[in-house]
């Protein structure tokens, strides 16, 4: 008797916990509402099955607990019942799968007007690069990376010259503009993840991976690394600031392009050479 009651309380507790939980999604700040909806749907269907199965089990425990001489049903198989259950399950599963696949189809097809952002991950931090006026990112190579060229941009690539380099872990994004995140890593696996945007993808060294989202809520969000990347994994954070157009443009203008950086460094180099020459002369 008490066994059934305790199991019943467990199920009841689970349902109540789900209804009254203070711990639930962060407010969504991107276009992936569909993911949340599919989760909710799965909760209804899956949760319903869970509760139904458990209640049936509890009922059996109440009703058929051991009694000497109880008449027990002897029926090894019931083809009809089994067929009904199989089909019902299949339909239920298909109903859950369909929206999942539809949203995945959106997830892998990036809209044409998406702004490409190069997210470069390293142990343990992030840096970002935006295309310049030509709207295209220059190609990169890990071996090109050095102090003068923090992103490893191919110096010969004309598209790379006007790339805007953000050498901090704060990325600003314009509201309601789709963003295609191009992920790369210089050392190990990482994953650029903002819980409020719902989306994520691993950064894999050697290849460029991508995903997209459309931020639709102004605010400041924390970036987390969601793929274990060594001892500093938990501390690998960054920030995304979603702004309206005016603030965004202001921020954008403050950033430095690759050619500016090269020019600055060349100037520095010349200055340095001058100093060296002076010293030599002296």
């Amino acid at each position, binding site marked *: 008797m008490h066994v059934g009651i305790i199991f019943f309380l467990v199920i009841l507790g689970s349902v109540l*916990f789900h209804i009254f939980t203070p711990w639930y999604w962060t407010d969504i700040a991107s276009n992936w509402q569909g993911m949340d909806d599919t989760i909710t749907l799965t909760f209804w269907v*899956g949760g319903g099955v869970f509760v139904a*199965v*458990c209640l049936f089990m509890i009922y*059996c425990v109440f009703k058929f607990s051991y009694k000497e001489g109880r008449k027990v049903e*002897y029926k090894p198989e019931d083809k009809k019942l089994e067929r009904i259950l199989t089909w019902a399950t299949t339909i239920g599963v298909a109903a859950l799968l369909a929206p*999942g*696949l539809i949203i995945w189809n959106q997830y892998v097809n990036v809209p044409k007007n998406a702004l490409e952002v190069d997210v470069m991950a390293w142990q343990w931090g992030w840096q970002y690069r935006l295309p310049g006026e030509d709207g295209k990112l220059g190609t990169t190579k890990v071996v090109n990376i050095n102090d003068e060229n923090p992103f490893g941009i191919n110096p010969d690539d004309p598209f790379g010259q006007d790339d805007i380099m953000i050498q901090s872990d704060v990325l600003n994004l314009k509201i309601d503009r789709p963003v295609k995140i191009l992920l790369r890593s210089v050392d190990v696996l990482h994953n650029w993840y903002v819980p409020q945007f719902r989306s994520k993808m691993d950064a894999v060294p050697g290849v460029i991976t991508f995903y997209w989202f459309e931020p639709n809520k102004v605010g400041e969000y924390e970036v987390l690394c969601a793929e274990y990347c*060594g001892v500093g994994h938990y501390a690998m954070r960054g920030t995304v600031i979603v702004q309206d157009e005016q603030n965004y443009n202001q921020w954008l203008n403050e950033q430095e392009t690759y050619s500016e950086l090269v020019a600055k460094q060349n100037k520095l180099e010349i200055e340095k050479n001058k100093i060296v020459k002076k010293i030599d002369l002296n």
Partner: protein
Amino acid sequence: MSDEIDNKQSIQAQSSETMNQYSGSAAADIDYVRPAEIPEQDLYHGHSFITKWVFCQDAKVIGVQYFLTAVFTGVVGLILSWLMRLQLGFPGLAGFMTAEHYYQFVTMHGMIMVVYFLTALFLGGFGNYLIPLMVGARDMVFPYVNMISFWMFFIAVAVLMASFFVPGGPTGSGWTLYPPQAILEGTPGSGMGILLMLVSLSLFVIGFTMGGLNYLITILQARTRGMTLMRMPLTVWGIFTATVLAMLAFPALLVSSIMMTLDKVLGTSFFMPTILKAGEVLEYGGGSPILFQHLFWFFGHPEVYIVALPAFGIVSDLISVHARKNIFGYRMMVWAIVGIGALSFFVWAHHMYVSGMNPWFGFFFATTTLIIAVPTAMKVYNWIITLWRGNIRINTVMLWCLGFIVTFVNGGITGIFLGNVSVDVPLSDTYFVVAHFHMVMGIAPLMVIMGAVYHWFPLVAGRMLHEGLGKWHFWITFLGAYSIYFPMHYLGFIGVPRRYFEMYDSPYMTSAIGMNEFISLAAFIVGAAQFILIFNIIKTLKTGKPAGKNPWKANSLEWHTSTVPPEHGNFGDRLPVVHRWPYDFSVPGAKEDFIPQTTPPSEVVHTEVEKT
């Protein structure tokens, strides 16, 4: 019900029925079972202590050896989980806990529990003990190889444990051992630690292959007379299918271990692309980290079912015996086990939806993954329908089974979230995943293991475990474990990523501090409760009630041995002859509520037993 014995026999059976009306002397005919195909097996009987208990060739002793070794590693894994929960619930309380240590504990806990505890316990422990007994064989077919198998496993465990004591400590790369980080500076134990892990895994695979060949051939080629495939207990079906999976999945683990070892030792670049570390480009280049993930999960996903299928099989038997009712839809259960096993080779990349592999794979793997849900759901239905109109003994064993159903259904449902590709995107790599797999392949199989221990202990030791202690053990474990992992799903919803040493002050993470503390406290209690079982076993061995023969009134062959506990050779002078499936409980018209598999039809002619 299941497949018939060959036509000849059924004709004879019919004819004998007609004859029966005139004389009882022809009863021998309906009891006809084909004569033995296989000659008696020669057994090596050890006489010294060493050959009897250490290098023993008796599968039952080997099973117990496997069991004890696995339990030892399990206790190590349990202690590691305590340390992890200590850090997560109460950061900074343990002064020695650095991020390095935390990640090493995470890694070792995961690998120990999945491979060295659960796999070894189900296949090595229960497999060795139960297979020969349940199919009616004298022993495993290759006892010597079986013995070597255990000692390989033992060495693998020793190597694994040795990694705690090498410079740099054990590997801290997560149990998935993803390169490049697994073998690079920046991950704890990237020197000797990871090497010993890889060596240990390779040894485990080699040892397991020896054992697995034994299980398969014993089941396929050494069953007793009358034991058709469709008369085997579901336990045997579960272990059989899991072993097939292991034989085909472990090669991928072996290959990836070899390749990673070479990357580490010889500096090859199988998995290593060009890498910039600390401002310097390393010697590596041109390899593919994703290749490792494919190899690993081609092993890793079947591995989930290697743990789950024996649990499915065992729990079916336990439910049937203690509900005093035949398992519902036996044939469906068998095909579901086989089907799940086959499908498990086509779903591996659902662990890699956000790994950067070609995103179009997502469609295929999401579909195959959700297809698996159908046979799995059928199994759940059949378990609960078995309870329906049964005569359920609410004893410790049944409690564990009920606990299994609740936790397994819960974990299975969350599996549908994670298998459904776009739902996985927000949830993957968060605590939702941690909660899911602990519920479905940690707690649920553990429930079955515990149930199986309480069920078969009287056979192994000849004494009944104490029921009262058993119930305490169950309730603390079940309620505690459920309250650990059920709320943990919601941490995943908040967005807390897994494998975080500490959460800092991220707003949505700090909101869960209270929950983390609660989970940690529950984890300490549940862990401690496991020692109730150890106490119970020790107490029972000393003062327990003698079990006698067949205390549960079960049908399958292991309860019908010549002695309890069974001696080497299992069945005394003559092997048993099987006449029916093992689920003839509460047959209408029968005197008792069970008919053992060895009972010939002539002894139960007046019952309405279904033909099996």
